[in-house]
């Protein structure tokens, strides 16, 4: 519906810089930077410095010289492979499931007429629940003497309580963790998506309807592409968070399901080796940024293809 006014940067305004009044380019060019400045200063002051310190920690040996020793130790560690695998596995399973669930729920919500606010409210409640509390809640369900077994027993489906959360039932354990994570963190995506959906003018859905799109086609061909910016953000944020899962997994899985962030915490707190912990941190960061980059490339939104 609108044309973006390209200002500075790569915009066509610079195509003929000789004739373009330099003053204007200069006067406009700083605007985005001015808008970013507060947050950049904030982050540099608060985070860049400790971050650099932490990264340095990971590449410095006990003597202070540059070394890969800490990464070596990380990689050689008993739990490393499992932690890496579990983290990636969880991310790969949970995030897409969450995205799907959140999209489904968001569509459900927008399709409702009455009661949508109430429904939306209820669905966002897990937002307010810390991961530790969520871990407790799901432990109460899946533990051997928990609610699930109680229910199954009362229903007469089983005679002995089943064990869901042990190292010899990794599948159910993983399943439980996935469920808990879905429960806990889908709301974040949901709210981002609902907020995004509210901004899509209804006329596009109507046009799709008229041109014979089934609800599913309308969703995939219209809603989803128009929701791209929000979807991209939801995915990035959730993925980064998923790579740092820890509390819920440790509550349900204990040592059976090591994850990268958990290992980082252990090395840091329990084993008191901040260097190896920092190495884990760097690894997590690297994976996060890699995936973020992938999302940005895969879910590209062309500037001209927006409202």
């Amino acid at each position, binding site marked *: 519906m609108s044309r973006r006014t390209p200002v500075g940067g790569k915009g066509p305004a610079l195509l003929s810089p000789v004739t373009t009044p330099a003053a204007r380019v200069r006067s406009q060019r700083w605007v985005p930077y001015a808008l970013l400045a507060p947050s950049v200063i904030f982050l540099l002051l608060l985070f860049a410095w400790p971050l650099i310190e932490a990264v340095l920690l990971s590449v410095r040996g006990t003597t202070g010289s540059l070394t890969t020793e800490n990464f070596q130790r990380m990689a050689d560690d008993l739990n490393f492979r499992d932690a890496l695998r579990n983290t990636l596995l969880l991310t790969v399973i949970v995030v897409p499931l969450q995205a799907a669930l959140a999209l489904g729920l968001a569509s459900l919500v927008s399709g409702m007429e009455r009661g949508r606010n109430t429904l939306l409210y209820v669905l966002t409640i897990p937002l307010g629940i810390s991961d530790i509390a969520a871990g407790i809640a799901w432990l109460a369900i899946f533990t051997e003497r928990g609610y699930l077994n109680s229910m199954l027993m009362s229903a007469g489906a089983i005679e002995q309580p089943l*064990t869901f959360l042990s190292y010899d039932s990794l599948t159910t354990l993983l399943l439980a963790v996935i469920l808990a994570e879905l429960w806990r963190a889908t709301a974040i995506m949901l709210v981002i998506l609902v907020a995004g959906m509210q901004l899509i003018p209804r006329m596009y859905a109507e046009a799709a309807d008229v041109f014979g799109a089934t609800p599913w086609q309308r969703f995939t061909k219209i809603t989803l592409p128009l929701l791209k910016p929000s979807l991209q953000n939801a995915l990035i944020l959730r993925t980064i968070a998923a790579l740092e899962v820890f509390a819920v997994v440790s509550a349900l899985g*204990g*040592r059976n399901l090591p994850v990268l962030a958990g290992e980082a915490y252990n090395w840091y707190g*329990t084993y008191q080796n901040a260097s190896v912990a920092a190495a884990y941190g760097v690894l997590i960061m690297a994976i996060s940024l890699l995936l973020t980059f992938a999302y940005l490339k895969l879910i590209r939104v062309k500037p001209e293809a927006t409202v």
Partner: protein
Amino acid sequence: QNNSVLFASTQFRQLEEAQSMRDVILKDAPVKVEFLGQENAPFVSRLIAENKSGKPSVSLAGGLHGDFTALQAAAALDNVDDVLKDLNNVKFIPSMVSLGKLGTNNQKYIPWAQATYLMAAHKDALQYLPKGADLNDLTYEQLAEWGKNIEQATGRKRLGFPAGPNGLIHRYVQGYLLPSYTGSYVQKFKSPQAAEAWKDMQDIWKYTNPQSASYNFMQEPLLSGEVLVAWDHAARLKDAFTQRPNDFVAFPAPKGPAGRGYMPVIAGLGIPEGAPNRAGAVVTIKHLTKPETQAQTLRETGFFPVTRGNLPTNLPQGIKIMAEAVEKQSGEGSIAALLPVGLGAQDGEFSKVYVDAFQRMIIRNQNIQSSLNTQARQLQRVLDTSKAACWAPDPVAKDTCKVQ
């Protein structure tokens, strides 16, 4: 606020305990004390950070031996030789006082309270005790057989160990399993006797509730019935005994071929370097080490005094049950395995060696000898890095301790 003492502690941080600490134990202290329970990691981070910044706010630090080694490694602790001198009328257990030197020439912390690890069983489980077994004189084989009997009778594995992420399973290995078979837990780490110990542990594990790998505290699985027989820190079993004193029995850890290994735990009180209210901290230490306060601490929390003297008589039944078992455990023929000494910042990784050994051989069922060899290398690296000399029950010497 200026003349109050900020007291950060990794012990008694659990809500109820912290509450009794504030409302009962510290109530009569001569200065105003602000007690803050803290988890180990934040506790250590904070004190180190305060130290680095040069503006500490904590005047008194309470923690386990291991917490202090980490602080000492960062040079964040003040010497407390003067305080100890002031306390010359208090009859501390000497071995504990020397532990408080952290391998240096100066006193780094003052003993505060002690605890140990125990076995607990639901009374229902007693019927399945192997024939001829004495609850107070159990062997590791008998423990395995007991578990087997229970499984055969109830269809479930109901032994339990705190092998979760916050569980203390490494203390079990260090202080109980290995010393009982080898009389050592460092030097003979990969000895054949140690291999034997692990083999027996594998047996025991067959009858252990697999959820053990996520248990941090054993009192809850005991109370819920998921587990009938368990080993854990006294304070982490306490609830079972205090809530249902009639259902549970406490008893000493099993014996092995080399005897009954056990590990006393010491909590201490240290003063961060540059503490804003050192005088107040000293007064508080004096208050906490008074015999009356020590007795009060036992009553409220299940931590035992670090001073010599008779136990108070008016103990709650649950505490009494444990106290009796503790006494039996440290009795004749027992091998006291001390907490690591002189490891400094390597303390955490030292424990990891044992946790990982447990992981490999018990949880993942890997080959015992090769696992021991791998872990022994790690162990040696830790020892080398810290240059720590051997400590009890290994023969105490001056050189860096070596795995044989």
